[in-house]
């Protein structure tokens, strides 16, 4: 698999504060990566370092196996970090023209990309007159100008209204479905869960997990159960080797599976044992629960 970005033992210190600590991971072509972490966990700093705007303290990173210098590599990368930064006195078209000049891209791409983000009709409006949602979409258009090998997005939905968030997400999914590698930094878990195939979890600059999203949610799920025969159900579950643990909260019993079992089989098993259920739900732990477990500071 083609490697796009390799980060090795990267460390960044701001004075006595260590923002990124000995971080290593690899980004391969074709996947959608999420960098997860609470605020201040070093997501933006890490991206800043690989994007040439923050100086590393130690460690290494290399783009495209180190075949080109960082600023040359960035011409093949599309990135937006935090807020969209453009010249307020220029129109959308003029701003993108400037980006074309920097990246060495043909101007014909401008209209094409503006159409993708739905800003073609407003291309001659000044950037300062845009709403935040439009600014963010313009930033995405700008990042797409060079048909990048990888698209880096840092909190792309930050500060947007629900409609704006929806628009941006649809856009990201569309871009991902076309095979562009994406690196998405976010603290919004459902965002990452919905779009990403791989995830890197950071806390206080340290890597807690890196791998596939579905492997992170590795458990086989759990049943939420209610029954008239509460006691019988509880003792049956406790004596059954298929279950890891059983939790009781009032009427509700939660049973965590040790190995896979579907709800129908389980229901039949209980019925055969003379227990009838009044409530049965099978659930998987969400990324959010996994994430909170991982980043739990207590």
């Amino acid at each position, binding site marked *: 698999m083609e490697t796009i970005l390799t980060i090795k033992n990267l460390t960044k210190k*701001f004075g006595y504060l260590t923002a990124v600590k000995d971080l290593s991971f690899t980004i391969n072509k074709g996947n959608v990566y999420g960098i997860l972490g609470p605020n201040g966990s070093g997501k933006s700093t890490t991206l*800043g370092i690989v*994007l*040439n*705007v*923050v*100086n590393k303290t130690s460690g290494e990173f290399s783009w495209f196996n180190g075949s080109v*210098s*960082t*600023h*040359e*590599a*960035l*011409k093949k*990368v599309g*990135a937006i*970090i935090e*807020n969209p*930064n*453009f*010249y*307020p*006195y*220029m129109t959308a078209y*003029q701003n993108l*023209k*400037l*980006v074309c*000049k*920097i*990246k060495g891209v043909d101007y014909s791409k401008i209209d094409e990309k503006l159409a993708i983000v739905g800003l073609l009709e407003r291309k001659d409006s000044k950037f300062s007159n845009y709403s935040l949602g439009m600014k963010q979409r313009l930033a995405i258009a*700008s990042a797409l100008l060079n048909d990048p090998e990888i698209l880096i997005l840092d909190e792309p939905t930050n500060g947007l209204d629900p409609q704006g968030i929806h628009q941006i997400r649809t856009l990201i999914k569309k871009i991902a479905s076309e095979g562009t590698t994406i690196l998405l930094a976010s603290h919004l878990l459902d965002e990452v869960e919905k779009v990403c195939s791989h995830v890197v979890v950071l806390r206080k600059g340290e890597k807690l997990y890196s791998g596939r999203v579905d492997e992170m949610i590795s458990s086989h799920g759990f049943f939420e159960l209610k029954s008239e025969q509460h006691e019988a159900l509880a003792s049956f579950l406790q004596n059954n080797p298929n279950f890891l643990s059983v939790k009781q909260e009032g009427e509700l019993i939660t049973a965590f599976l040790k190995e896979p079992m579907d709800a129908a089989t389980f229901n039949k098993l209980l019925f055969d044992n003379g227990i009838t259920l009044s409530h049965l739900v099978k659930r998987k732990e969400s990324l959010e629960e996994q994430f909170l477990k991982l980043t739990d500071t207590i």
Partner: protein
Amino acid sequence: MLRLVNLELQKLLLNRASKVLIFISFVLPFTVLILSSIKINFFGFFTLELGELGIFNFPIIWHITTFFASYFKLFFAIVVVSMIGNEYSNKTIKQNLIDGLSKKEFILSKFYTIVFFSFLATVLIGVGSLFIGLYYSSYTEASIIFRETEYLLAYFLKLVGFFSLCLFFGMLVKRSAFALAFLFILYIFEWIIFWIVAQASSTEMAWKVKNFLPLESMYNLIDQPFQRVVMTKYPEKIDMAYDYAVHWYEIVIVLAWTALFVFLSYRLLKKRDL
């Protein structure tokens, strides 16, 4: 190189404020030059014609026009500091780097633009002076016309040096207004050094030291022409004689400062986390 200048020109020329300032810094000295060269009739009382004073004679005209035109560099200095200040306040410097401009290219695009505009200003003043000179001057032999054109070179270097200083201050403080204030502080600072050295040793020594400081060294490139004008009128007053030529060591000092300012701007950007 053309790509970098082109980049910066787009940033400047689409901005109304800098467009106006650039226009002023080029047109104003030119207008003043033209106005001063025409005959002005004060309601029939008397006519003022500066040309009569002989200041538009070759070769002294090169000295006069470049000396006065260099005062208008302040308008373009505002453009230079604001072209850095704006990049910081709009955070577009960050975006430029992310888009694939290297830090070196960023500084170079500013510096090349400075050189470009300084060159343009020099050409304008050169051509303007040449025509006015040809109109007024009593001497029109090529050897006299092109004598002392080193003032044009001095003018060019003075502009490049001064704007590089502005570039450095802009990078240092990131805000246009503060950068301009720094220019003023530097001016005072140079006089403080002068005063300290004068106290410690002699005034002569103090001048020698001050001649090496950035603002004074740039000013020294083109000495004031007033004494020279008076001298041409009263050649018998030998005690007024002074050294007004452009010297190689003056050029070297300014070039050294220019190189240092551009280099320091780069170092500053390189070390900085944006």
